[in-house]
């Protein structure tokens, strides 16, 4: 039973495997497993009621494991997590960046007035860090590119054509190479194991059905749900949250503006009563606007191409830059990124303009305040 708790913990843990995990006490592991399963919507209450000392409940744990296995490709995902990277990799999607953003923090009240100089200092630090990151990345790219160039024609795999840093390093340091080789072989053994599992899977499910059958009917106890530990972050939801908030703000703004203008317009229109030409004109306007807005909607309705492939990609240098249909091309990615950049820049400019307006309004509202806007920007 203990082993099952630990296995579930390992499967459900968002942290990479390590010694730190192994040292967590069994009771803690069990509690975390319960909480994680609960947050995923595991339907069986019996699990939540299991004692956490590992003394009983192996059947429930087995059912829980099967539930997880049924819902997703668990072994493959775990293998992918610990995959040995043989190539030089670069990620294309922004998943990591968004994941680290996390859910929007609740509105925090600062203790006392915040010194704007502190904020400026922080901004400066941030800008500096960005610049550092950019320059070190550029350097890394240059070096990578050199290594790829110098080792062209070496690789046994024609598709790749040149060595990666990992591979070249292996040649330079044979001991490290041996280690890499061992890790690679270890991974291959695990791959074979997963393949064997997949082939034998139907048998497993037959067996699990019988296990389910052995569950004795019991009255479900009063819902004493385990305390919901915020240990398992909800993936992807943070991002949706942001969009929702933005749209809500937009909605609010529009509501005010539309109301205002509608009232103003009605007043004006009532003043000058117009005849049939007027209604014809109105219809014409309505049609034009509808067409425009329809075009706008199509901009996002049409699926913007296939999703940018997720996960890391192995960098390969080729003179002609030709790529197979499953591979990505740097040139195309650059195009996509440029259009993204343009869009974001437009949004940023708008926001900055709005901020300036608000600031001006603020300054205007405070008597005796002299507001000197910075030049340029």
């Amino acid at each position, binding site marked *: 039973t203990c082993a099952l708790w630990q296995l579930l913990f390992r499967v459900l843990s968002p942290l990479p495997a390590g010694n730190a995990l192994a040292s967590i006490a069994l009771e803690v592991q069990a509690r975390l497993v319960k909480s994680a399963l609960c947050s*995923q*919507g595991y*339907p*069986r*209450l019996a699990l939540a009621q299991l004692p956490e000392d590992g003394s009983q409940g192996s059947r429930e744990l087995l*059912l829980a494991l099967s*539930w997880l*296995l049924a819902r997703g490709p668990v072994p493959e*995902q775990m293998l*992918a997590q610990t995959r040995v990277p043989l190539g030089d990799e*670069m990620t294309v999607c*922004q998943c990591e960046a968004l*994941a680290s*953003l996390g859910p929007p923090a609740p509105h925090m009240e600062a203790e006392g007035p915040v010194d704007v100089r502190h904020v400026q200092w922080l901004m400066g630090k941030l800008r500096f860090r960005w610049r550092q990151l950019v320059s070190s990345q*550029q350097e890394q*790219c*240059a070096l990578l590119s050199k*290594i790829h160039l*110098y080792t062209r024609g*070496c690789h*046994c*795999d024609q598709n790749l054509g040149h060595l990666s840093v990992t*591979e070249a390093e292996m*040649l*330079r340091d044979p001991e490290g*190479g041996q280690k890499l080789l061992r890790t690679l072989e270890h991974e*291959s053994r695990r791959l074979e194991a*997963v393949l064997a599992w*997949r082939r034998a899977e*139907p048998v497993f*499910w037959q067996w699990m059905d019988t296990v389910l059958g052995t569950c004795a009917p019991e009255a479900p106890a009063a819902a004493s749900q385990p305390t919901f530990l915020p240990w*398992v*972050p909800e*993936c992807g939801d943070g991002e*949706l949250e942001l969009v929702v908030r933005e*749209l809500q703000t937009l909605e609010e703004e*529009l509501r005010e*503006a*539309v109301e205002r203008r509608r009232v103003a*317009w009605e007043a004006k229109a009532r003043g000058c009563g117009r005849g049939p030409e007027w209604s014809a004109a109105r219809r014409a306007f309505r049609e034009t*606007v509808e067409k425009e807005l329809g075009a706008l909607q199509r*901009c*996002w309705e049409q699926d*913007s191409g296939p999703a940018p492939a*997720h996960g*890391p990609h192995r*960098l390969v240098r*080729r003179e002609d830059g*030709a790529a197979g249909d*499953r*591979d*990505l091309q*740097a040139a195309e990615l*650059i195009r996509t*990124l440029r259009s993204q*950049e343009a869009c974001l*820049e437009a949004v940023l400019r708008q*926001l900055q303009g709005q*901020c300036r307006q608000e600031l001006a309004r603020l300054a205007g*509202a405070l008597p005796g305040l002299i507001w000197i806007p910075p030049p340029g920007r």
Partner: protein
Amino acid sequence: MLQAWEPTGTWAWEPPPEPEINEEDPLPACTPSPQDLKELEFLTQALEKAVRVRRGITKAGERNKAPSLKSRSVVTSPGTTASTPPQSPGQAGGHASDRRPTKGLRQTTVPAKGRPERRLPSVPDRTRAGIGARAPRPGAGLRNQHMAPSAAPQAPEAFTLKEKGHLLRLPAAFRKAASQNSSLWVQLSSMQTSDSMDAAAAKTQFLQNIQTAPGGPLALNLPRLSAAEVEAEARRLRKACSLLRLRVREELSAAPMDWMQEYRCLLTLEGLQAMVGQCLQRLQELRAAVAERPPLPCPVGRPPRASPSCRGGAEPTWSPQLLVYSSTQELQTLAALKLRVAVLDQQIHLEKVLLEEEMGCNRGLQP
């Protein structure tokens, strides 16, 4: 790695297929042992030093003879022939080393590299003794120099990726392991996509059964959205949001010239308002669906390289795809743009926070 490599290990110096490269490698059949290469390194350092000294000396000719003689005697001293696969002892070794220089002669035309004509006696004795016949290449080189004295010192013979990188070959054991590994991944992917009907049906059945089995509360069997669908919808709505936002700004900031424009602006704004409402509704529905039925068993780990949302359910391949680039500049542009987009995202986020603060202040100020 781009600098000279410390010859600490055996490399797979397999004979390169192209003939012209053969010329550059004077001893194609050799696999220099680690010791050899270390000695070689010492030697080249010493030679470099010698070159530097030599340049100050005008009389080149006489020196040629002396060192070559010396070197020959050194070379022919029976040392190990560890570098040559047919390990011939003693005499044969001497012969071999004698033969080698000539072989080197024929083949090496260009890389009479930096072989200074003179070897300083001040070179540490141990290296000289050690080098002896165990470094036949310098011997060959020296001989070359004797025949074709070239006063131009060139780059040392140490291994640099730049010059010799294309000669590298991955060790056979690794090649085998890597190909096995990649074929296993491919097998895994294909098995994933062509998930046997039995297994898939069994799984769905099991999930249904577990809902209704005793010991657990019943739950409605809602249709599960695949992660890919959720993601696609989220992407669309995100794009919608930014486009709508842009348009609203444009309309609000445009100053209507006459009543016609005013009316049109009003209509547009009303239309936009409706669209925003629609998007919001769809988002709320999406969120509710995701909350009810998480499309993926989320916490299967957040490894440093790929987050769980990355493995959106429809992901058939588990081994990395390729990203092909054609020049250093392209790679750098790509990296720079990626960062730029991230920076802009961050800046926008900060600007929004600032705006919220300001609007809050303004609202606070108003009575």
